[in-house]
């Protein structure tokens, strides 16, 4: 019990020492990590599927590998853009 009160005292001291701007920066930093983490889920799955299917297609028809590769990079570029917009949100929250 005594230990808990001491921890509470420490955290109260931390909160009291922070100015409102610092508190805001703290919560923005936490949310920034969350924002990028959430934004990376979907594109991660999507890019995995694109590469997997492209490898399947290249293994089936090696002579069409060049065309498949170009189209694969196009698909990756479009999918990746979503994660990168999440990254921009991270930058804006953390640094702006």
């Amino acid at each position, binding site marked *: 019990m005594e*230990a808990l009160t*001491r921890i509470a005292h*420490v955290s109260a001291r931390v909160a009291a*020492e922070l100015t409102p701007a610092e508190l805001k920066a703290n919560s923005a930093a936490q949310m920034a990590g969350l924002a990028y983490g959430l934004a990376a889920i979907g594109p991660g799955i999507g890019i995995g599927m694109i590469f997997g299917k492209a490898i399947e297609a290249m293994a089936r028809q090696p002579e069409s590998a*060049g065309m498949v590769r*170009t189209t694969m990079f196009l698909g990756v*570029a*479009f999918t990746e853009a979503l994660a*990168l*917009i999440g990254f921009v949100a991270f930058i804006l929250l953390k640094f702006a």
Partner: protein
Amino acid sequence: MFSTQLAIQVVEKLVPAAGEGRGFSFPPINTILRWKDVVPGINKVVIIAILSALIGTVLFLVASMKDARKAPKGARNLAEIIVEFIEKNIIMETMGKSGMGWTPFLLTMFVFIYLCNLPGIIPFIQMPATARMGIPAFMALLVWVVFNATGIKHQGLFGYFKNVLFPPGVPKALYILVTPIELISTLVVRPFSLAVRLFANMLAGHLLLVIFALLSQSLIQAETMRFFLIPIGVLPFGLLIFLTAFEILVAFLQAYIFTVLTAVYIGGATHPEH
């Protein structure tokens, strides 16, 4: 009981006293991305961008002055490899033979973006000029103007916007849904995503390198517990080397993707789907 007291000690140690930071702290973004101006208005990023434009121009000027009848070597060999890559792997794959006239534009774009990306991994320079929004935004705007102008030139003002807004082969009732989506995706999302893709990729790579460089520096040069921290510091240093090699790939891939997407947009505007 012992563990809670240990936890308290750890918390008290980790919580910095007011006005004094302990351990590892990340510098503000401005010290990473903005340098002091060399001349007012000209900083490191501007110098890198100007240099990469100059290097690309000089390379192709030197190559064009060599005798074309002899076997190519040196600058001409390099230039021919790049031109062949653009024609074979980008134009033929996306626009076909009729798009060969776009080689100079796409070549300039590819070489400039690649040379702007590359300083991100060159030691002592280590700043990709495309990690600032200015250059990607301008390039994307240029691409937007070019592909719209091409579409209007080849299909006429009315025909181009008819093909963009009312793509053929869609049931009439669906146009309520399709037309706004197409309008936004073609005229707004295309240039925006083109610019943000290049910018965010290069900035993310740059930040990764900065973080691991700072981490290994602060661990290897630690003042307390050196025997424990220095072996740990070798790990982020190894990852730093690996990430630098990865950034070489990313620098090339982003220049390639930007050029391929430009080619796709121009090709789509030249030959509408029937």
